[in-house]
């Protein structure tokens, strides 16, 4: 991801006054493009299908899509993060014969794991009927394949193709969903139709990847063996990936199982006001995400590469200590800038929250929740930025620990918040995000302090192992 943003930063450096805005827009699209298109597609389907299928069916459709996203992200995350790591390592070593096996192995594992998780969750936890379980499992499985394709295409920096694939897939998915509504197939049929659009995205990405990497070395083992080896080698990364995905959804699962949940016509619980507030808060993160892509990732990555280059260029220890210190200062400055921007956005949204609630048709009882989750967004940006830096130094164990702490905190705090009343539902997420951000700051400070020992000793032992 970092490499593609260097052109964005270069764009930023031209003398044209509009260029910074253009580069930011480009970065925003790179960071959040697929998600934006997906949201737009869901809104479009909802708008067109509501007269055909009714408001309840459209609501049920949106909720089931959310479940499919949740289950597919959790089920595929460990395999994606490990596979991308293996893929990147092979690209760095200029070995391409492993890539098809990694990709196919990750796709198969993600799909199998997701369908098991989805079927278990929908059947055993939710107690949904078989039609819902089947459609939910199929759609989650298809989505998990799509995420693998998206991740690998992202590593290849083939963003243009990814954008085209998403556009085509979402158009097809939206049309199929609307068609299902017309054919009175109900929300489950709409979900499956929508998911088939994502299958097109997966197929497009697969064709692109297998056309780029055409050979596979049979001596290195089949897809299953290759993936198993990667999982064993990067088990901390796998745990981290799982926890990172789970952390996004843990609070929702706690609330879906609680007394504040409503139930759709298909039997799936949801907490509309809380989810609406979280969605609004997620939108406020867009500028920070863009800044992270355009600034933190690029600047940090360049400084980090310069530091590594100095090591390979046989610098003295004194020089390396200076560069590590410089890297730390530069990164802190970049993170500080991002947090400043996000802080300003949060403050603005907190102030105009009543207007947002009125315009969005939300309940004023959730004003506190909206404000809490928006502030939590600031902490979340800090957490994501700092934990990403920790991962840059290959401290996968540390990263996994941070993500696990966040999952535990957000689950426990959200559960505790339910006892305080509906107004305070966002307090749990805020508390978890605040504590996690503080821990991530400590982690990143320790990482910079120990930069040299991490790079030398940890890398040396990894090589020898």
């Amino acid at each position, binding site marked *: 991801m970092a490499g593609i943003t260097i052109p964005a930063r270069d764009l930023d450096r031209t003398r044209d006054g509009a260029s910074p805005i253009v580069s930011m827009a480009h970065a925003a699209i790179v960071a959040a493009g697929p998600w934006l298109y997906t949201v737009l597609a869901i809104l479009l389907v909802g708008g067109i299908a509501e007269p055909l299928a009714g408001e309840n069916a459209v609501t049920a459709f949106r909720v089931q899509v959310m479940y499919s996203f949740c289950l597919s992200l959790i089920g595929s995350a460990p395999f994606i993060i490990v596979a991308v790591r293996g893929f990147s390592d092979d690209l760095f070593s200029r070995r391409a014969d492993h890539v098809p096996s990694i990709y196919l192995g990750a796709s198969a594992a993600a799909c199998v794991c997701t369908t098991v998780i989805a079927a278990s969750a929908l059947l055993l936890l939710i107690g949904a009927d078989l039609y819902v379980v089947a459609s939910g499992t199929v759609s989650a499985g298809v989505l998990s394949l799509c995420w693998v394709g998206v991740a690998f295409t992202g590593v290849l920096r083939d963003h243009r193709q990814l954008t085209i694939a998403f556009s085509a897939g979402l158009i097809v998915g939206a049309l199929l969903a609307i068609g299902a509504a017309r054919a009175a197939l109900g929300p489950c049929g709409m979900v499956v139709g929508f998911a088939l659009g994502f299958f097109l995205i997966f197929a497009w990405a697969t064709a692109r990847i297998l056309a780029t990497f055409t050979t596979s070395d049979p001596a290195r083992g089949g897809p299953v063996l290759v993936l198993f080896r990667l999982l064993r080698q990067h088990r901390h990364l796998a745990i981290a990936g799982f926890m990172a995905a789970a952390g996004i959804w843990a609070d929702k699962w706690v609330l879906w199982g609680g007394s504040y949940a409503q139930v759709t016509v298909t039997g799936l619980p949801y907490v509309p006001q809380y989810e609406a507030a979280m969605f609004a808060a997620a939108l406020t993160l867009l500028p920070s995400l863009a800044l992270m892509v355009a600034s933190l990732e690029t600047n940090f990555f360049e400084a980090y590469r310069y530091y590594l280059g100095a090591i390979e260029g*046989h610098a003295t220890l004194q020089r390396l200590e200076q560069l590590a210190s410089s890297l730390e200062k530069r990164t802190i400055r970049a993170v500080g800038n991002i947090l400043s921007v996000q802080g300003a956005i949060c403050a603005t949204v907190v102030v105009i929250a009543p207007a947002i609630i009125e315009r969005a048709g939300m309940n004023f009882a959730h004003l506190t929740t909206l404000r809490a989750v928006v502030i939590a967004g600031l902490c979340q940006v800090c957490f994501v930025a700092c934990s990403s830096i920790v991962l840059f130094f290959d401290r996968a164990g540390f990263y996994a620990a941070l993500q696990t702490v966040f999952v535990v905190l957000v689950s426990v705090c959200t559960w505790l918040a339910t006892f305080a009343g509906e107004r305070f539902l966002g307090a749990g997420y805020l508390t978890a995000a605040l504590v996690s951000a503080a821990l991530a700051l400590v982690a990143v400070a320790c990482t910079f302090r120990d930069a040299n020992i991490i790079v030398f000793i940890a890398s040396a032992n990894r090589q020898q192992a």
Partner: protein
Amino acid sequence: MRAADSSQVGEIDADICIIVEGCYPYINGGVSSWIDWLLRGNPQSTFAVVPILSQRESRPMKYELPANVTCYRELYLNRPVTPPLWLSRGKSDPKGIRLAEALTELLHGGGLATFRRIAEIVNEPNHELTYRDLLASGLSWTAVQAMYKSSMPQASFLHFFWAWRSLFGGLFATLKFSIPRARAYHAISTGYAGLLASRAGLETGRPVLLTEHGIYTNERRIEILMAEWISDTIDKGLSLEDDRIDLRDMWMRAFDAYARICYEACDTILTLYEDNQRLQLALGADRGRLQVAANGIDLERFGNAVSARPGDPPTVGLIGRVVPIKDVKCFIQAVYFARQKVPDIRALVLGATDEDKSYFAECQTLVRDLDLDDVVTFTGPVKITEYFSKLHVIALTSLSEAQPLVLLEAGAAAIPCVATDVGSCREIVEGRSSEDPALGPGGRVTELVNPKQIGSAIAELLLDDKLRETLGQALQSRVRAYYGSEQALENYRALYARHTRAVPQPNPDRRERWRA
């Protein structure tokens, strides 16, 4: 450090623990064959064998362990180690500083006492450092940094870091190894084998013996001086008084230190020929502990071999592995020059070609470039007695040798030799100055890396049947008189018997010596 006491004189794994680096039982020929001969020639003793290898890898043993080997343990100098999840430099670890100081002292002339201090730091009772502590922890980082800053703050830290890990990683591996319990410890070189034997002597109070074939330190010195991967960061110009240490110095000083430690720890230091003792004395060995124990060969086995007849195609053989130290390229070039005088010459290279594949490829290229495809044949490993009947002359073009068995074996079969002036080659080919009666030369001794001179000598012997026969007979007489296997084995039997007599109490003189 645990002191040896009588309560520990109990069960043992073997009478003698042989400690060998980088050959037996995985490499054919040379020292490996000698060790195999030593083990089989002493059936009355039990042996523990500790081969020291770079790392664990599965490959077939080239020698079957005889029945009197009752214990076998491999020591790996490089082992993978997983760093702790929380890898932090923390505060400066005082133990790391002490370790750094002791290692620095080692590089500045430290010997057995310094090694003992290092062992005490590493294996302090109830506070033992693990291999992970020594290579992948805040303590090890403290030690690396401290040594770097005090020794060579101007050097590439990357190179220093890897040099430190290679050199001292091996030292730490010897300190953490589980040593077999034996009545005596016999190292077959200094270096890491010598370190392990020294540690065994310190911990058990048992006698330590050393047999040096080549001088390990010298061989490492040549490799280090030629190594292109070691960067030189100090330009000392022509100054002899610049005492700054660079990476190359660090490598050489480390191996010098390992040799010093071993010589101080040993009760008896053996070598194959007198000239080698000069080098051992220069490296700090005590003259009173030096002995010469020449190699021997099975006279019956090789004496019955028949050499080539005058009418057969003129053939010269090089018996040895195709590796740089044997300078096979020089041999090939010598054959090129010899061919100018002996057009129908044949040359056989009788030895393994798989030890250094890139060097072997270079030799093959040279053969092609010199248009010697029909002349030079690489046979791979063979039974050399079966080839003696094809050979008129044996050539040895090595850059470094100790007491090459190949000259003795060829001599036993009355085949004259052309050898470079390394190790004991001149002593074998021309006889010691004290030889009485003088038996005359058994071949020709040449300069190193002089293919023209070597080729000329080979041609001289191939063209003159009478001369060849005279030289061959002289060499055979010398080998029979001074290099018999039984005689050599008897020397070791006596040595082992002397050093493995039960010791009810540790020798106080030995402990005092080590406390110095």
